[in-house]
């Protein structure tokens, strides 16, 4: 009786938290729900697929980086992908960055170092807009965490370009795309200013294979997931140890509690 009533008192609180955690987020006005995908880094033990991250980085470097920055990352962070220090040094040196002022008070150009942030494609937001018909290409450092449905959405967006239908599926109004606008199945509102960035055979991987649209989209999505959450693997590994400790500790505490309370009546 006593146990039941205290459990009953607890149940609604648990239900409340569960309802908020799993049921609450808003739906409408945020586009079509992208299909759920299986990602290697999801789940309790999931880790990044380093080969996919390297391929994804190549896709970012050859395609996305023309318009989108990765402001929060430095070249040195690429060590996570399995590149050696020498490789990263060479890679960074491909870019020229502005440094200074030097002793004469002048700014100067030098090759980028591993400690430099990824070079931004545009000098500032205004330059980015001017080059993209007024639309600002968002920085991609946090794009996976900053979008509803995360990886699933990014993949769906990259592969979701279609010919515009005659009428808008939600509003029912006739669709009239302006020049520089494109129709995407999964973009909220469907109309966006980014031209389809990837297509079959656009990127040739290091092994000489040319990537399909789906492969390139999947790889770059995983790369961007890493960029959003670079410490994911360390987090899960530490979590395992912490939980193991707490479970053992809880067992010891329970045994102690039982022993102490054995004589109470």
């Amino acid at each position, binding site marked *: 009786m006593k146990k039941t*009533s205290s459990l009953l008192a607890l149940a609604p*609180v648990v239900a409340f938290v569960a309802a908020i955690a799993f049921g609450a987020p808003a739906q409408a006005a945020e586009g079509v729900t992208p299909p759920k995908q299986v990602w290697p880094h999801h789940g309790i033990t999931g880790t990044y697929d380093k080969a996919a991250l390297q391929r994804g980085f190549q896709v970012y470097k050859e395609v996305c980086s023309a318009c989108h920055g990765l402001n929060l990352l430095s070249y040195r962070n690429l060590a996570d992908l399995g590149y050696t220090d020498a490789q990263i040094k060479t890679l960074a040196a491909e870019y020229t960055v502005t440094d200074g002022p030097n002793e004469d008070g002048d700014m100067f150009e030098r090759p980028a170092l591993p400690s430099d942030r990824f070079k931004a494609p545009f000098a500032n937001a205004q330059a980015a807009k001017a080059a993209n018909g007024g639309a600002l290409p968002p920085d991609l450092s946090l794009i996976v*965490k900053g979008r509803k449905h995360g990886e699933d959405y990014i993949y769906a967006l990259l592969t979701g370009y279609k010919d515009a239908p005659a009428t808008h599926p939600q509003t029912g109004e006739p669709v009239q795309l302006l020049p520089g606008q494109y129709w995407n199945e999964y973009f909220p509102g469907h109309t966006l200013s980014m031209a389809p960035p990837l297509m079959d055979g656009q990127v040739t991987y290091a092994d000489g294979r040319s990537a399909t649209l789906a492969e390139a989209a999947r790889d770059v999505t995983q790369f961007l997931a890493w960029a959003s959450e670079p410490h994911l693997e360390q987090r899960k590994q530490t979590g395992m140890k912490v939980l193991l400790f*707490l479970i053992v500790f809880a067992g010891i505490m329970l045994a102690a*509690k039982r022993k102490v309370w054995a004589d109470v009546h």
Partner: protein
Amino acid sequence: MSRPATTEKFDNPVVQWIDERLPVFTMLTKEYGVFPMPKNANYLWSFGGIALTMLIIMIVSGVVLAMHYTPHEAYAFSSVERIMRDVNYGWLLRYIHMNGASFFFIAVYIHICRGLYYGSYKAPREILWIVGVIIFLLMMATAFMGYTLPWSQMSGWGVTVITSLFSAFPLVGDALVTWLWGGFSVGNPTLNRFFALHFLLPFVILGVVFIHVWALHITGSNNPTGVEPKTKKDTVPFHPYFSVKDGFAMVVFLAVFMAVTFFAPLALSEYDHFNAYDFLVTPPHIVPEWYFLPFYAILKSFTMDITAWMTLLGTFGALAAGGFAYLTLQNRKWAFWAVCGAVAAAGFLFFITLASFVTAGLKDPGFMDYMNVVVVPAKLQGVLAMFGSIILLFFLPWIDGGDVKSARYRPAYKRCLALLLVAFLTLGYTGAQLPEGWPVIAGKIATFYYFLHFLVLLPYLSRKGKNLPVPESISADPCCASKGKK
């Protein structure tokens, strides 16, 4: 077993030396050694200690985060990301602090539910309860300001929405909002002051928690029967019985907290918390953290402005009701107070109506449509109801004045309380939904029940409700007797 409270000598000479000069060890023995706890207190009684643990975790992680954080509108977002990426174990600190807020609220909500169910707010624990409500309010203020600091879309827009609520107050509203912001929009001064207050308030909470615990140690803990301990047989010393029991509960709670922190750190947060604040881009859906949603839903439940013809009708209605009471009530004292109440209500309604007429007239001298002047805007109703829903809790010991504490022996109250929880959960759900369709109606019904419960059902039940027989003492409670047989 444990050392009795009257011990004057400690075995350890150093302890004895210190204790003669500063009796910390005597105090600890009295308050945490031999302190009598009702032996039937169940695991729900562990959540006070768990909440205190969470507060300490929040303060420790928060102070370290503050060492790496930059409270400036241009750097706040990237400094938080620097913590996530470049500070050693910064990601862990931040995720502990983020999810710690949620788990602090989970612990406190369970703690409050326990108090409601077992009547822990009743005599002699009224001040203990009131101090607890103050802690809850301080926690809400602190959490809200903390939500601002990452300067994300949700931060900036959440602050905009919530601080704008204060503009609902008549006359001073707009000035109040400007004062809160430190400018004419949410900006750097807002972020700076919120950071200062977010750093300060947890220590204020710690101080108020000290008062809460002090008051607790005067009255002692309530227990599932609601019957105060009568003899030594009813209690056990805090140590080792409850130190070990609370310790076990704490470790289990921490395990759940850590499981979420390490394996689903974003389960309780919104994606727009990872996009930098941009005052030009309104997010599609602005929602507060989950622990505010029920109160946010109460706020959103008020959608109809009260206009002049309604308040005037109310004025006449109040006068008529007063007259009716005067003529029909046998008890003259009651009749007197009924008339006083009616005149005061009518006077108040008439005054605010007149005030809005004057405002409307001053704004536009040619104004004619006086009957449809808005007297109490929906927004103001919502704000008053939202704050009122918590302020109400201060008066709970007197709203529910009956002698029987525990819901175990109050079957009708138990059912009403279950409905209150359903209403609160409904509000939690509808608070996160867009204001359209059935959630709006469900939210309104739940809001109605919330106030009905505290303002009508509880006063009635506490005076007229039928109670079951209460056991003579804790030891006489059949639940205790059967459990301890050995």
